[in-house]
């Protein structure tokens, strides 16, 4: 008899990985493990320093000669400018409450993805450069010298943080690792180290007003194309205006809604809603982007890209701004816009022309989130809705990180959902509202070369969807964020096949009974409504 390979021998191909101190494990820069670096031309286009062609896979990152000085001075400048940064650097007691709350840690198990250790990557340099004890005791005080290896580690792990802020919810000191990541990315940008997926949209946006580099005539065409579809579905003709001076409201939404399914269906929903209530609004082909990838590079760039919202509102002479479904866009608006580019005294505190409701929370920014706007309409009985048109859907809701944690918008979208569809099921409590799990691809990480990482980071979210999919037969994941609408479809396809993704206002559009409409046979995706099969292709 020939020798039989024993199972334990077979197992030898899979040795238990060696155990090394986590701090000594260098980041992996093999293909697929890092986002592509930005091209020199997109850095140059916006005047960012140290533009060059380089790759994380290279041994030598061609850092500028005085790179240590650049980081030291950049760090110092930011510590002086932002009190919060200094507090975050000083006050962590390493209690570990945040450690297992990050979706990247939960999905990867990599200790450097624990928020506390992610922050430690920066904090160790802070201690070394800016504290006496760190200078004296070095490693014993948790300090370490700034070496190129540290820079590489920063690049790896601060681009494995989606700036979602889930960790901060659990920190007794309110330390916000997302802010730490933002600072670290700013410092990396000083050395010309940035990623393509962020810098390219930034430089496009700087030039044409939107991330895609789409020009005004094309923006207008695509909206008109939506109107044709709406007419086919509802029989109602829409004539939205562009760049119209004197309109009461300026509407701004992420360009993803205009150019990528399923966001497009939400855009159709917005247009139908505005028609239904007779809103005096206009769209801008210049402020044609609600999103702001500048947020992921530097506060200065965020400010520059954000400025067009107020400038355009002023130019058009509108009273206030209504904003579409987006995540990080609202972080910028809610948290920074007022102080950064305001005060916008040429605008008025937003009042709904339909219900008379004053949006007190938006008095400073003059900009209202459409979910709040629509919730208010429903609450005041201004919408004629037939939720049964969404009866083929069993819906759950993904709280996008920024609207949920950044602006506390938790109930409005749910209130809208409960009114526009008959089957709504929330995911488990520990995974929604302020505890929501990130999609795993936010803050500019929605790029395809790191798909494996995104699938791991998105696992906690997908896992909760799977729970309601199995328990309640949920087949639609709704959300109010353009990045979500782009990245959740593959995430669902991989982890929870059978669950589709939509924006909130797609469901609103489906349910909306418009004046003069024909009998609806299709939903906004032009798919047959249940019971109407086959009718639509006649």
């Amino acid at each position, binding site marked *: 008899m020939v020798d039989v390979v024993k*199972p334990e021998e*077979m*197992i030898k*191909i*899979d040795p*238990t*990985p*060696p*155990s*090394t101190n*986590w701090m000594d494990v260098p980041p992996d820069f093999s293909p697929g493990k890092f986002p*592509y670096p930005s091209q020199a031309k997109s850095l140059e286009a916006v005047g960012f320093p140290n533009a060059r062609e380089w790759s994380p896979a290279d041994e030598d990152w061609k850092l500028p000669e005085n790179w240590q000085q650049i980081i030291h001075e950049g760090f110092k400048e930011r510590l002086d400018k932002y009190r919060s940064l200094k507090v975050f650097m000083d006050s962590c007691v390493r209690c570990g409450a945040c450690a*297992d709350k990050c979706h990247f840690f*939960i*999905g*990867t*198990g*990599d*200790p450097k993805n624990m928020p506390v250790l992610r922050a430690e990557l920066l904090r160790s340099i802070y201690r070394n450069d800016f504290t006496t004890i760190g200078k004296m005791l070095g490693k014993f005080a948790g300090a370490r010298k700034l070496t190129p290896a540290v820079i590489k580690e920063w690049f790896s792990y601060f681009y494995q943080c989606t700036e979602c802020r889930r960790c901060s919810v659990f920190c007794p000191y309110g330390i916000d690792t997302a802010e730490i990541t933002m600072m670290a990315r700013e410092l990396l940008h000083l050395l010309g180290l940035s990623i393509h997926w962020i810098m*390219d*949209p930034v430089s*496009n946006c700087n030039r044409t007003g939107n*991330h*895609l*580099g*789409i020009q005004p005539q*094309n923006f207008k*065409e*695509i909206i008109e*194309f939506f109107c044709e579809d709406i007419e086919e579905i509802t029989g109602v003709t829409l004539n939205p205006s562009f760049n119209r001076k004197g309109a009461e409201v300026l509407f701004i939404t*992420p360009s*993803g809604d205009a*150019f*990528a*399914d399923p966001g497009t269906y939400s855009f159709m929903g917005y247009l139908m809603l505005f028609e239904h209530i007779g809103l005096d609004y206009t769209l801008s082909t210049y402020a044609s982007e609600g*999103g702001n990838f500048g947020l992921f590079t530097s506060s200065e760039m965020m400010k520059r890209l954000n400025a067009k919202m107020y400038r355009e509102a002023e130019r058009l002479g509108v009273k206030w701004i209504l904003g579409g479904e987006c995540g990080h866009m609202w972080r910028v608006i809610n948290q920074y816009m007022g102080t950064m580019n305001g005060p916008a005294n040429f605008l008025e505190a937003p009042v709904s022309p339909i219900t008379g409701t004053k949006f007190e929370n938006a008095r400073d920014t003059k900009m209202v989130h459409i979910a709040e706007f629509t919730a208010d309409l429903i609450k005041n009985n201004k919408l004629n809705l037939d939720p049964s048109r969404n009866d083929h859907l069993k819906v759950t809701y993904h709280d996008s990180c920024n609207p949920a944690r950044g602006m506390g918008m938790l109930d409005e979208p749910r209130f809208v959902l409960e009114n526009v569809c008959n089957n709504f099921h929330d995911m488990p409590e520990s995974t929604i509202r302020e505890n929501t799990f990130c999609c795993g*691809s936010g803050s*500019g990480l*929605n*790029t*395809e070369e790191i*798909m*494996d990482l*995104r*699938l*791991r980071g998105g*696992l*906690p979210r997908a*896992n909760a969807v799977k*729970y309601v999919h199995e328990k309640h037969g949920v087949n639609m994941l709704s959300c109010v964020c353009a*990045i979500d*609408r*782009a990245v*959740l*479809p*593959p*995430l669902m*396809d*991989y*982890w929870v096949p059978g669950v589709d993704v939509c924006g909130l206002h797609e469901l609103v559009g489906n349910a909306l009974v418009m004046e003069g409409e024909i009998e609806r046979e299709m939903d906004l995706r032009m798919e047959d409504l249940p019971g109407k099969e086959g009718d639509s292709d006649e």
Partner: protein
Amino acid sequence: MGLITLIEEKRSKIVKEWFKLTIKTYPKEKSDFFKKKKDSMANPVGNTLSKSLEDILKGLTDDVENNEMAKILDPSVRLRAVQEFAPSSAVSYIFFLKNVIRDILKKDLTKEIEKELLIFESKIDRVSLIAFDIYMGCREQIFTYKANHVKERTLKLLEKADLLCEVPEVGAEIIPHNVYLNGGFDDK
């Protein structure tokens, strides 16, 4: 007493040992966390694995069809397919079951049981082959996301709207630079 009854009797011990070995394929810092947390929402990796191993063993003792076995295997293989393992390592955990059973039933291995066990082990081999199919399926799925998938839908839209034209100075290159399209699928 037959082999299946013996396995039934020691089922939970077998699953526990098997889980332990499987978790050992992760570096220590990772395995600590995957092992510890019991809440399935807070620790999907650990919980998916332990539930899956339980189901696989049950599938084996129930002698389910290949199709059914594929369904049972899917969650754990799918997970390991994105966890940076070499393909061989990703599916290796199936084989660990052989070790575990032999170890735990050491004292019960009469000639008769030994014979049954050889047949059972060949079933484990079959399961590992199914696992490999699933693994490849998962990888292909991921490559598809990277390559195209949703992009087609979007391109259609752009074409329909006559947007795929050259823009002077900038070139047609501007079109694929879309941060929202396709979850970030570029065509490089």
